């Protein structure tokens, strides 16, 4: 029996290791002393210093973080309300709205970017930050909505009924019972939204203007026009941040599981 699991486990191990090779290489080269990133010429942390002195990268980082925060918060509100509401208000259009509302993550991103740019120009949403917030919110809503909806489906409705039997109002029952039970799903949906927003290239490329560069756009430009180890240093720091976020969401998920 032992033998039979060796190969599958080896397969998983090798593929996982391969997954990390490109990431590790980027991090390793961030400590490269040479300016030409393809030549290794000794260890140095000078690029991290150069990174910290680069204002434009800081601006891009700030833009990205603010944008991702706003988009995931808006998505959390709309998505949660929508999922909870649709479980209670049985309107005929619910099915159609649900299907259409998750379209933004179901169609190729380029199409979404294309429809946003022409439509925003039509109705006059200014490009740059306002357009970015609307655009990102729209592709974040489905993540929250689907996660909350899944959680609602698996929820024991008798708690809410019990609360109501004991005299709790609709709102009270929501605050005391439904919301705490949904919280892990909302948080995971928001974290996923945040990550997706922080990583988005295509939609942002279309909706941005000269003043509101985002971090992925900045990196994208550098990858196309020429990179320095400063880009590596930036990527390495972002990776550290992702690890932190990943650990956090893992911890949130674990706590939710333990509670069930």
């Amino acid at each position, binding site marked *: 029996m032992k033998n039979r*699991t060796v190969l*599958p*486990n080896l397969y*998983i191990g090798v*593929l996982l290791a391969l*997954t990390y090779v*490109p*990431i590790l*290489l*980027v991090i390793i*080269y961030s400590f490269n002393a040479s300016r030409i990133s*393809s030549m290794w010429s000794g260890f140095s942390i000078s690029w991290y210093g150069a990174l910290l002195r680069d204002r434009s990268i800081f601006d891009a980082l700030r833009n990205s973080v603010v944008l991702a925060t706003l988009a995931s918060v808006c998505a959390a*509100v*709309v998505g949660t*309300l*929508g999922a909870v*509401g*649709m479980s209670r*208000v049985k*309107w005929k259009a619910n099915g159609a*709205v649900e299907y*259409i*509302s998750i379209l*933004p993550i179901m*169609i*190729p*991103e*380029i*199409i979404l970017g*294309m*429809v*946003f740019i*022409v*439509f925003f120009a*039509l109705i006059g949403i200014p490009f740059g930050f306002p357009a970015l917030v*609307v655009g990102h919110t*729209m592709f974040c*809503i489905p993540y929250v*909505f*689907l996660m909350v909806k*899944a959680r609602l489906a698996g929820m024991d409705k008798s708690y809410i009924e019990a609360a109501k039997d004991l005299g709790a109002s*609709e*709102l009270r029952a929501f605050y005391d019972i439904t919301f705490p039970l949904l919280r892990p799903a909302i948080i995971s949906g928001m974290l996923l939204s945040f*990550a997706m927003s922080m990583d988005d*290239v*295509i939609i942002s490329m*279309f909706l941005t203007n000269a003043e509101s560069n985002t*971090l992925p756009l900045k*990196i*994208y430009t550098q990858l*196309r026009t020429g*990179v320095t180890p400063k*880009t590596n240093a930036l*990527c390495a720091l*972002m*990776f550290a941040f*992702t690890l932190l976020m*990943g650990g956090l*969401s*893992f911890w949130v998920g674990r706590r939710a599981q333990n509670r069930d």
Partner: protein
Amino acid sequence: MTENTRKARGLRAIHLTVLPIYLTTLLFVVGPMAYMIALSFMTRAERWGVTAVFTIDNYINIFQPIYLNTFVQSIRLALLSTALIALFGYPFGYFMAKLSPKWRKAVSFLLIVPFWTSSLMRLYGWIIIFRANGTLDGILMGLGITGEPLRLLYTYPAVVVGMVYVLVPFMIFAVYSSAEKMDWSLVEAARDLGASRLQAFLTVSLKLTLPGLLSGVILTFIPSMGLFFIADILGGNKVVLVGSVIQEQLMRSRNWPFAAALAAMLMLMTTLFIYLYRKITKVKDLEGLL
């Protein structure tokens, strides 16, 4: 809105909860989509913008060999990437479901971290690997397998590797969520009744994990039709996809009606492929979408 007004309105207040999603969906999904389709039938204005003169020229233009070719290239790349992703991702997700719960958690964490890492950073890693005298050349030449740099960067294989690498987690998670729920005793039953390992896999396991495989295929095929920046970064300008053409028409040529027609066509193709695929595989429910 305050608590009081909500309470005062009683039951009707609950209707307000669905309003945001109804409104945003209508305004920012239905509206833009409808406008894209309308735009694709409009005429480009002489200098700037569009005029509302009906035409189907934009669609006819797509059939010029130069544009048709980008569609063919995009579909070919998407099909090839999806097939490779299924090939590599399916066994991974399937084997992963067989691990002990502790290891499953560890492996899914190790998968999520790169998945959440900026895809640009991961692609940058492949630039380092593929470029002339880069990591891969270093290893191959060091081992004496090749005598000179392979110059893989800015080639078709490099783009395929990039696509597979970025999208394979979708497949793994979709297959895994299907395989995890599977009743393994059915496989044992098949084995007890005399089925070989392969027979048991084909008749039981594969069938039961098919929904996962299907949603994995959809989840990878759809984005792969539009991920033009991977082709841009790893393929230089050698691999031109529909996405790049749409972007160019939008940002540089400023021919919005044509860009809209291209996007509508891409949307149609994607939907068609998925429809056909579902028809052929006859699976209805999607699994592991998230």
